[in-house]
């Protein structure tokens, strides 16, 4: 059962898929709506326990969405078990929010989308905005009844790119959403982030540098569509019909950009390369460019 969309937020009406966002006001009014499940997904694994939006369940990107052994997401069985345990039904409306301007919330939304969960939305502004507005939080466990979520095969072709897909993609737009320091090759990690093991620094040849943060306002909400058009169409040169791959370091910041390109600007073919720099920067024999120049696109390899 799905819940009505947030039709009352003026800014959303400019987006390609306005139904993918809800405002804090909307969520406040719909806290008890049947068919709505609120999900918190944070970088900090304990933040939810310090207090969360009433009724929200926690989904941790690292310990729950990733397979514990293989570097991959959980499979259809694993996702069904996770959803059932969290009390999420296949036709529920899911609203995800989190810390760090919704990085991990966007990442979770993208993973939900790999499994074709239909109605999954982001809370514009995420956890920080909810807290900044002094809205209610609770440490009370939500106690949702388990559901019987179907086993759905993960679709890795439509929204997800692997390393070989990137090699075959040359000549089409690539968006590097990391910091300028990482793009240039001055460092392999985000400023103030831990070393996660990439052996080379720089960027994938021909990738445009558009740090993820250019899509958000100071309060963590997404910029209005006109400003997003300026960043991604005018500055980065993306056009309707483009086949785009976005990447970052482990795929979380690029999920955020994927959300902007696909759902807010309406580009149809956008994939997230979740292997991102921690794979590319350690991969043997793949081309890399250092410095501010994008570099020419190599011949695609099939």
């Amino acid at each position: 059962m799905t819940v009505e969309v947030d039709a009352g937020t003026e800014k959303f009406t400019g987006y390609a898929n306005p139904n993918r966002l809800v405002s804090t006001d909307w969520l406040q009014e719909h806290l008890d709506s049947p068919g709505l499940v609120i999900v918190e997904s944070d970088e900090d694994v304990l933040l939810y326990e310090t207090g969360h939006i009433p009724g929200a369940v926690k989904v941790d990107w690292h310990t729950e969405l990733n397979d514990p052994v293989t570097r991959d997401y959980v499979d259809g069985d694993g996702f069904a078990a996770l959803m059932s345990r969290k009390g999420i039904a296949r036709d529920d409306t899911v609203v995800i929010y989190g810390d760090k301007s919704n990085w991990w919330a966007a990442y979770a939304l993208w993973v939900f989308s790999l499994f074709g969960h239909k109605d999954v939305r982001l809370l514009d502004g995420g956890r920080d905005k909810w807290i900044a507005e002094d809205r209610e939080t609770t440490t009370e466990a939500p106690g949702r009844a388990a559901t019987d979520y179907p086993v759905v095969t993960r679709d890795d072709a439509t929204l997800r790119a692997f390393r070989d897909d990137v090699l075959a993609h040359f000549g089409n737009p690539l968006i590097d959403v990391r910091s300028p320091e990482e793009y240039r090759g001055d460092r392999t990690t985000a400023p103030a982030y831990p070393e996660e093991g990439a052996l080379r620094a720089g960027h994938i040849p021909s990738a445009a540098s558009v740090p993820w943060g250019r899509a958000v306002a100071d309060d963590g909400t997404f910029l209005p569509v006109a400003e997003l058009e300026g960043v991604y169409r005018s500055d980065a040169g993306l056009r309707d019909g483009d086949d785009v791959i976005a990447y970052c370091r482990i795929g979380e910041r690029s999920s955020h950009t994927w959300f902007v390109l696909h759902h807010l600007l309406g580009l149809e073919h956008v994939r997230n390369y979740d292997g991102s720099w921690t794979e590319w920067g350690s991969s043997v024999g793949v081309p890399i460019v250092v410095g501010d120049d994008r570099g020419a696109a190599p011949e695609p390899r099939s």
Partner: protein
Amino acid sequence: MGEAKLTEALAEIRDEFLELGEQDRLLLLLDFANELPELPERYADHPDLLERVVECQSPVFLTVEVDDGSVTVIASAPREAPTTRGFASILAQGIHGLSPAETLEIPNDFPQMLGLGRAVSPLRLSGMSGMLARIKRQVREKSDAAA
């Protein structure tokens, strides 16, 4: 490597974690996070005296005082980073009052002994290892200077 040598307070903390199921270990970590004391005033006005732990994803700053042969760890991390606060608090409580030599003998893999690998993830635990390494370096520098 021989049997890891843990001082009493650190061993107690480890046992407290290991006695619990994995999800309850998270809540114990949250208790530690809540117990991290506010920065003493002499540091509140001088954040430059603290060292940033870059291995942690969240901004955490720490310093070490060696006074009369006893070590104190002082740390600061924002409320929005409870995991990091918890790590800092464990080390501050576990190290409080140890001698520099005892502090330097803390096994570098102490963070891995708490049974948090699955509940927190090894990647996040590396932040705690970074804190421990920096504490030891500061202890080394500050006890050399005092000697």
